[in-house]
């Protein structure tokens, strides 16, 4: 059966990364989860070890590696069983905005810091009153005296506490069409009028920083416009494909980890004085989950290849995002049931995954939004 075409270099990279995570991340994860926070320093460590922004070209100090490296980072991060160090968001979702739309001067200014971990990035789209409905956003960006003045609130911003740089979507109030009014701006932490709110407490992803961001007469230079004025909507849509693909990959990786752990548990745990895997019902449950994951992985692999070849796979990516995130939650629920009473406790590692994976059907566009996109592509 086919897998992704990993080369020796990919495998060596994976093994180095695994080593890094084993020594620098995994031992601290339980503490970070308790703290509801990761230390700022771990971003720098990861950057300096060469595991952030692997796709940034060498001319900006990056490694210029292909998307499979991003897949590997995503999978290996999932194995650490925490979501705090949200590297894929920084490396493969936010930084690509700068890479794709930034002026040379912007790239030179920010990319090296993004790569070495000095700069942590976030993207700010969602607002308290506009979740899935991006067109209804109300944060404004007005040109006044050669500056851009920003007013509005953003919410559910991942990396919202640590971020040094925010890619902000805001509307020019003078432009009527909501689709042509949105532009993207780079806002640096510390800019007067830009304030980070308290952390949002969540069901899972507890070590991960999600926050509201407040912009109150926040003035930034005109040069902080990212790409064409009024192109924000299209820019966002284009970048969502990779984001959703990564979310799907992460969901399947988490499901894989949960299932593997559960298989191992059932091999050893006793029920009626026998290993649980002697129970036919348990065997079938494990078989069904293994099958779903194998089937989903085949689709995902095709999709990764098509994405790397720059095919338009908007519909398929939306399919993967919704299907994989639902399946991952099903797997999570079934694994907990199989493990039984032991899984009532947070000591059981798959409990944290069960909590963390719940967001996957919601973020990067809810699954309902995914289905709308697919319906359009089917011309329904």
């Amino acid at each position, binding site marked *: 059966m086919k897998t992704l075409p990993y080369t020796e270099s990919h495998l060596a990279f994976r093994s180095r990364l695994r080593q890094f995570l084993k020594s620098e991340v995994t031992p601290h994860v339980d503490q970070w989860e308790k703290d509801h926070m990761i230390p700022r320093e771990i971003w720098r460590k990861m950057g300096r070890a060469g595991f952030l922004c692997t796709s940034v070209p060498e001319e900006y100090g990056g490694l210029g590696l292909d998307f499979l490296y991003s897949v590997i980072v995503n999978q290996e991060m999932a194995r650490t069983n925490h979501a705090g160090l949200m590297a894929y968001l920084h490396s493969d979702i936010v930084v690509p905005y700068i890479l794709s739309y930034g002026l040379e001067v912007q790239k030179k200014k920010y990319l090296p810091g993004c790569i070495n971990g000095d700069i942590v990035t976030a993207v700010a789209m*969602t607002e308290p*009153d*506009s*979740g*899935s*409905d991006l*067109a*209804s956003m109300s944060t404004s960006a007005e040109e006044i005296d050669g500056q851009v003045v920003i007013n509005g609130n953003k*919410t*559910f911003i991942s990396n919202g506490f640590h971020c040094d740089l925010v890619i902000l979507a805001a509307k020019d109030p003078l432009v009527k069409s909501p689709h042509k009014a949105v532009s993207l701006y780079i806002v640096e932490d510390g800019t007067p009028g830009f304030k980070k709110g308290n952390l*949002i*407490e*969540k*069901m*899972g992803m507890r070590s991960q920083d999600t926050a509201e961001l407040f912009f109150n007469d926040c003035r930034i230079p005109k040069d902080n416009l990212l790409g064409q004025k009024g192109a924000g909507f299209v820019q966002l849509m284009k970048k969502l494909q990779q984001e959703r693909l990564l979310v799907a990959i992460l969901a399947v990786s988490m499901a894989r980890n949960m299932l593997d752990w559960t298989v191992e548990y059932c091999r050893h*745990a*006793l*029920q*009626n004085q026998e290993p*649980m895997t002697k*129970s036919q*019902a*348990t065997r079938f449950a494990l078989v069904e989950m293994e099958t779903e994951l194998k089937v989903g992985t085949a689709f995902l692999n095709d999709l990764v290849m098509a994405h790397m070849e720059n095919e338009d796979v908007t519909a398929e990516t939306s399919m993967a995002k919704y299907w994989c995130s639902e399946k991952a*939650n099903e797997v999570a*629920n079934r694994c*907990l*049931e199989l493990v*039984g*009473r*032991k*899984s*009532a*406790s*947070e*000591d059981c590692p798959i*409990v944290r995954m*069960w*909590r963390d994976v*719940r*967001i996957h*059907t*919601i*973020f990067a566009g*809810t*699954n*309902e939004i995914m*289905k709308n996109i697919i319906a359009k592509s089917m011309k329904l």
Partner: protein
Amino acid sequence: MTYSLDKSQKAIQKAAFEFAKGEFDGDAARESDQKGIFPEVTWSKAAELGFIGIHHPEKYSGGGLGHLEHVLIAEVFTTSDSTLGAAIMLAGLASEWIVQFGTDTQKKMLLPEIYEGRKKTGIALDGIPLGNNDDGVSFKNENSSDHSLITGELKHVINGKDAEIVPVLCYHFEGGRLTDKCSMLLLDGKSPGITMGKEYSLLGLRATGMTSYFLKNVGSNHIHIFTPKDNQLLKIQSAFYLLMAALALGTAQGAFDRAMAHVKDREQFGKKLAGFQVIQHKLARMALQIEQSRCLTYIAANHADSKKVDTKMPVMANLAATKTAVEVSYESIQLLGGYGYTTEYDVERCYRDAKALQILSGHEHELLDQVSAGLIGRLHK
């Protein structure tokens, strides 16, 4: 046959509703969840008003009513708040053991304390005859004499952190073999010889602190020796499954109510979320699932009250209601979108509490084993 609640049952429902509305506080509930705090004051008020032990005999200060009334209260409580409601109702759970196996003295002394909110109870899940033996019964009395001293570990004690009465059935060994004779210890974390183990950090039901007890030469002075009858064990099982089902039912309803309020309030793409057909259908399916579980649970409770011996119905009600609770609260999170994932909007707590209720009710496969055993009966070659 009448298939609706009578006046007195509706009055009890209403009283429970008023109580929960007045006494359950969202902030307190979230704090209870985060820090694992038992809602001491609310619990004792609930007991004072007769919400604990309503299905137990009046002569021991119970309410003299039935399982159905007990189910109704539990459902209303967790509809209002899954964490607080479950904690309060579970604090009375061990009375089932005392009613079945206690001596008359024990009943007279202990049951009023439980029903009147003076003592909280806990249950060692390993001691429940529920077929939940994936960890095995880790605790046995190795001596058949009246004054045996017991050493061992008691895992998974629900409400063990706060409980003052934890009944444990100890099966006796004779000549190295387990017998069907047992005695019931009544422990608490402060009993001499007992060390409370680490508190489990639960994924849900966190106002109900689960812990383990380490026993070292615990004297069993309360011992009276008896052989539990199948019938008695079944009654305990039945009461346990019904209570868990009712708590799950309310948890589902509570999540549903919160989601309904949200979609009727929030707009996207220029209309209320509740105006979208797929959201309407999601709600309809959730309501249908809840209604089915409710009907089954009420009927199962009613059967238990009419003294029908039916091993399957309470298990089925439990399977249905806990599944419903998990699925409905899962979908409720979805209906709230990003808000649903935050602790502030409570539906994620419903989901965690629902999952905890499901897991602590017993291993799904073992519950299904019980149902199918009842269905198939003995097979002949």
